[in-house]
């Protein structure tokens, strides 16, 4: 109990810091972010992408029993859906703090623009949130709704692929622009979703003092292997992205991505986030251990987090048109303390929601 109170206290401190940062950002202005007119999208947005794709990935996992009829995954369904909800709310926190005038989002309803992928994302996220709440409520009251499960699965596909469309529209920034990302995003989302589920399940089991229940152990081992396979697939795609856009392309517009190849986020993403987890999870002796699963899932999540930042920066660090006047060919970026606080705010909210669920909502319950 003491440890739980300490943990909740830490999360509340994170939230208080986030609220203070919010107050400062909206009173002083977004100049508190390490932004110039060139770096328009940075850490708050990449954190939002990380959370939202992780949430979509969890939706894919939650669809295993409901949509694809793999009944043995029903034992982790409640935890998966709740974690999905918590992660989605964390993503909303970061998204709101990315927007210059969040109170005007009402104009998404009053003045809609269906030609905008951003408009579609906003609509899909509203529906996603409501459906997810309803689905969790049904599971909490003991039943799994197939209809809600299918709808959530479809919306998760559309949100993650629409994000690919959103960036695919930017003809002038080919580092962001490829229909390839409409496939890359759901797959990487599934990787981070799987990692999040394994990490939270393992930590919850260890903190309960009873360890991983015997009947779930085989399932987690199987799921860890799946996570390793997905991480390997992402690593291959990632390499081809590097080769086609970063090495073999002669287009000057790719110079930003070429620059990112040597960067810290890029190398964290590839080596720590993809290569190491793949090796760990494809080795049976490591995969079956709790520490192996925890290490691989933490590394994968850290790698994906760094990867989202690498991806966003590769689209913005090269100034375009008149923005390039008086600026270097590539603009450097280091997040400010306020940007870090925003990411911390989103993470703290997500973790607090999850902790409350773990404590009071019996997430290990198996629905009918």
């Amino acid at each position, binding site marked *: 109990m003491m440890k739980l109170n300490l943990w909740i206290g830490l999360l509340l401190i994170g939230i208080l810091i986030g609220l203070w940062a919010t107050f400062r950002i909206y009173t002083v202005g*977004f100049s508190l972010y390490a932004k110039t007119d060139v770096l328009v999208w940075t850490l708050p947005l990449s954190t939002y992408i990380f959370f939202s794709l992780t949430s979509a990935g969890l939706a894919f996992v939650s669809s295993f029993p409901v949509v694809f009829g793999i009944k043995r995954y029903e034992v982790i369904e409640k935890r998966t859906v709740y974690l999905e909800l918590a992660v989605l709310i964390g993503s909303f926190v970061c998204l709101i703090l990315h927007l210059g005038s969040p109170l005007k989002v009402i104009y998404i309803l009053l003045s809609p623009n269906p030609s905008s992928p951003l408009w579609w994302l906003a609509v899909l996220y509203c529906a996603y949130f409501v459906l997810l709440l309803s689905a969790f409520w049904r599971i909490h009251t003991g039943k799994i709704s197939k209809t809600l499960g299918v709808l959530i699965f479809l919306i998760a596909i559309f949100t993650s692929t629409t994000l690919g469309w959103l960036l695919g529209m930017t003809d002038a920034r080919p580092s962001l622009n490829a229909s390839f990302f409409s496939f890359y995003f759901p797959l990487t989302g599934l990787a981070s979703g799987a990692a999040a589920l394994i990490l939270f399940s393992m930590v919850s089991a260890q903190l309960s003092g009873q360890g991983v229940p015997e009947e779930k152990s085989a399932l987690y081992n199987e799921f860890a292997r799946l996570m390793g396979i997905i991480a390997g697939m992402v690593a291959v795609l990632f390499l081809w992205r590097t080769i086609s856009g970063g090495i073999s392309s002669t287009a000057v517009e790719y110079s930003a991505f070429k620059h990112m190849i040597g960067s810290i986020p890029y190398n964290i993403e590839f080596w720590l986030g993809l290569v190491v987890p793949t090796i760990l999870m494809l080795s049976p002796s490591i995969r079956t251990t709790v520490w192996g699963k925890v290490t691989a899932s933490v590394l994968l999540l850290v790698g994906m987090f760094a990867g989202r930042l690498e991806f966003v920066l590769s689209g913005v660090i090269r100034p375009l048109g008149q923005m390039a006047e008086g600026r270097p060919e590539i603009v450097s970026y280091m997040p400010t303390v306020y940007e870090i606080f925003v990411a911390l705010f989103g993470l703290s909210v997500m973790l607090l929601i999850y902790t409350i669920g773990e404590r009071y909502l019996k997430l290990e319950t198996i629905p009918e």
Partner: protein
Amino acid sequence: MPRYAMVIDLQRCVGCGSCSISCRNENNVSEGIYWSHKITETSGKFPNVRYHYIPTLCNHCTNAPCVRGCPTRAMHKLDNGITMHDPKKCIGCRYCMINCPYGVIYFNWKDAHPSWKSGNSVIQGVTSSPAEEVRQVGGKGIPYYNPERNETLPGIRSKGVVEKCTFCDHRVKEDKLPRCVEACPADARIFGDLDDPKSEVNQLLGKFRPFRLKEALGTEPAVFYIRDFSAAGYPRTKGGI
């Protein structure tokens, strides 16, 4: 309904910056924001180098990527071809800035004209502070505030929204030329109706071979460039090995 366009004659342009300064005054543009700007380039290798100067502004593209991507239609097209922005609907997502290939859209990271808010005077009790200066002349935020800008757009844009050139829509509405066109001492900017075959704009486009920025992207900019400034000549040659 006319479809407005601008021709910039690079032979006439002397790079004086009158367009940018008059634009700032007309539209109360804040520090760090450039509705009217330039791209400068140098070419060649020392000692054979040349300097190129291209004035830039919003291209008011027919296929404007900023308009297509704006989730709330804050960025929108007027019937006369002008790409307009409504700060009241702008949520500050900056997707238009990501979509614009020309880098002409700016975000208000903080309150506009911060230096004019300062209460510090250079010499205490002798010179007035910027804030006192604004108060004395009855300006709104800046001493040279132009209230006419307020007719179609907030005179000074608040923080958290984007802004950009509007081809001086408030002036065009009253049959006046955009301020940068009027202020150009070399008459290097020519403004008119692209749908009128007899307009000066069309006469120039028919006479010279125009180019537009990043035409391959298919955005159909309404800002055309003609000619180039070069007084240089060179002895006739076939080169050598």
